[in-house]
């Protein structure tokens, strides 16, 4: 870390963590370098996308990446469980390296549409991701930020929120394990969770149900008022959650999880940014928001994973590498505009390193597990900050994001992710917190009576 702890603590008052779902770096930000644009970004090169290094063989045919110019709902969720990710990374025994060309095969094995432009190989044109693209132009991106584990949502979210994962795949309930919330609470560091949908990820951990019914968990529409009014001190750590597509309670998910179109997530990112810049200058000038995706969601990325030889998860599973890269935007007056951090490597535990550096009483690291990850070369977010030139955050762009309205059904529950969430919802409603849950989350009535 280039900054001293005292400099960092002087500069940073609030860390905001926004975690979207299931998109790779190339799928969301690969367009930045396409067609001879930003050479500083390790995204998709072009214009020729039929080059051998991008080719994804599947059933004997070769499939190339393509620029997505029309946003829309995909034909299915993309495969991204532990076994599928292994196939996508495509370890080539002949060279003992990762080919990153098994994405088409994994999709077709799951019964995907037989077309030339396979959804996992699509990367978004700027017109489809105008907010993400604008943020990338006005703030700092990391093009070496990897999802921590080569598997699905829950393990990767846990790595971001705890530095360790007690599951290897997305499961119904997550076994009791401590997370950032416990770490912060035990150190009297103020925190809050703002969830846009009815459902917070933490609900899959029954240990948090008493907290979820309390005042630390709030709906996202309260964020702007909470920041703007300054009636209560702004917490040191704020976690923002989109409305999850895996939650059967959501009529309008916006988490970017396929098969959802990305317009909903773009609109949510814009709302988050608007809320952020509405904060009083004294707060905003000391705020750092990290906007990442939890994992790649089955979308192609051309950069091989970062090696983590010998890493053993809480479950006993060996994960010799990270998962693929995910989009990572650092949004703050304390970072440079239009900068790409390429020489430093990050994973989700980089968040926890940063939190500890900023707020751990008396210094010290976040945990032994996060120290282990640091040993693999993952840097803290603090290494990105540039205190030499603090600046005024630009106002929210005047971008109209439109998307087709997708009606959702409450039941039947279909995917593994939906089953996990449905299980948690049913669990909450049969717990002693039922009445408080129903009072706080009106959507639960519809679920309870469906």
């Amino acid at each position, binding site marked *: 870390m280039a900054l001293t702890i005292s400099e960092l603590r002087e500069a940073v008052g609030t860390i905001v963590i926004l975690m979207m779902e299931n998109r790779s770096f190339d799928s969301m930000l690969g367009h930045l370098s396409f067609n001879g644009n930003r050479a500083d970004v390790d995204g998709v090169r072009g214009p020729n996308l039929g080059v*051998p290094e991008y080719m994804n063989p599947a059933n004997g045919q*070769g499939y190339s990446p393509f620029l997505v110019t*029309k946003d829309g709902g995909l034909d299915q969720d993309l495969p991204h469980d532990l076994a599928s990710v292994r196939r996508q990374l495509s370890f080539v025994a*002949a*060279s003992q390296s990762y080919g990153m*060309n098994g994405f088409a095969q994994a999709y077709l094995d799951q019964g995907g549409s037989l077309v*030339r432009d396979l959804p996992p190989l699509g990367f978004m044109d700027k017109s489809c991701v105008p907010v993400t693209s604008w943020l990338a132009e006005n703030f700092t991106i990391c093009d070496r930020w990897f999802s921590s584990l080569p598997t699905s949502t829950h393990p990767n979210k846990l790595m971001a929120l705890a530095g360790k994962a007690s599951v290897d795949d997305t499961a119904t309930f997550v076994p009791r394990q401590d997370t950032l919330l416990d770490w912060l609470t035990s150190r009297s560091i103020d925190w809050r969770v703002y969830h846009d949908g009815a459902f917070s990820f933490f609900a899959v951990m029954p240990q948090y149900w008493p907290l979820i019914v309390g005042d630390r968990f709030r709906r996202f529409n309260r964020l702007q008022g909470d920041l703007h009014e300054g009636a209560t001190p702004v917490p040191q750590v704020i976690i923002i959650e989109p409305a999850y597509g895996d939650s059967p309670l959501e009529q309008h998910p916006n988490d970017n999880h396929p098969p959802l179109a990305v317009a909903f997530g773009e609109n949510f990112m814009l709302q988050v940014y608007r809320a952020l810049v509405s904060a009083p200058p004294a707060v905003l000038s000391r705020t750092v928001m990290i906007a990442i995706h939890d994992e790649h969601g089955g979308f192609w990325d051309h950069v091989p994973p970062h090696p983590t030889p010998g890493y053993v998860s809480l479950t006993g599973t060996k994960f010799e590498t990270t998962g693929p890269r995910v989009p990572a935007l650092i949004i703050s007056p304390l970072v440079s505009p239009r900068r790409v951090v390429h020489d430093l490597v990050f994973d989700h535990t980089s968040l926890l390193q940063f939190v500890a550096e900023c707020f751990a009483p008396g210094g010290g690291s976040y945990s032994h597990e996060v120290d282990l990850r640091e040993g693999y070369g993952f840097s803290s977010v603090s290494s990105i900050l540039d205190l030499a030139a603090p600046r005024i955050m630009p106002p929210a762009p005047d971008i109209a994001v439109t998307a087709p309205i997708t009606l959702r059904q409450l039941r039947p529950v279909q995917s593994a992710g939906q089953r996990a969430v449905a299980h948690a919802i049913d669990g909450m409603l049969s717990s002693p917190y039922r009445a408080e849950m129903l009072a706080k989350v009106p959507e639960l009535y519809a679920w309870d*009576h469906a």
Partner: protein
Amino acid sequence: MRDPGNVGTTLVRLGPAILIFGLAGCASIDTFIVSPTTVCPGETVNVSWKTCGKTTLTQIPLQSGQSDECVDSLPVGVSPVEVSNSGTVQREVSGANVFYVEATAAFGKPAHKCVRVFVNEVLPLSGIPQCAGPRVIRTVVSRPVGSEWSPRTQIGAVQNVSQVRVSVRHDGRIASLAPNEISSVFAASNPAGEWVIESDVMSGPDCGQAGTSVPNSLTLQVIPRCQN
């Protein structure tokens, strides 16, 4: 979780749910097959489906350069045709087309799926190489499932788009192709069957060791032609 009460009360309570679920019904696509998927202009293809829910079938002619990605917003000007839950139809195609099937329930997200028909278009044939000896890599590509060829479709030429020289065997013929070289050795042969593509390990360690210089894929462009 819920107190079931007596049977009558339960039925009264479940009534709206049963009604809603009955209206919602299902929206799924069990099978959707188009065959063949690589044809010559004017040939017909068989389109068959089995679905649950209100179903439409749409034939979408593709313009040059237009993506065939299977998203749920159809191009302007195409007209979905309502069909039964299972069936087979024949359709003539003169240019690249996508067949799009959609199943809809009263509530909830529709299911959709696509199959593209290639009409006399170049297709990449590709496989991931494996060691076939200390200094040789090989991939064996069988007839591509994703591009079933019509009887009129033949090989016109083959181009090596790998960045290494390759040896290609198919239909009893063999060719050695430099990068980007186009060969007519396989002209008039049937594209179906086995293609064996081999290459030498150029430099560095033997195959199977870290740092071995091998491409991630071995790829040919198959340039078809139509038999009169």
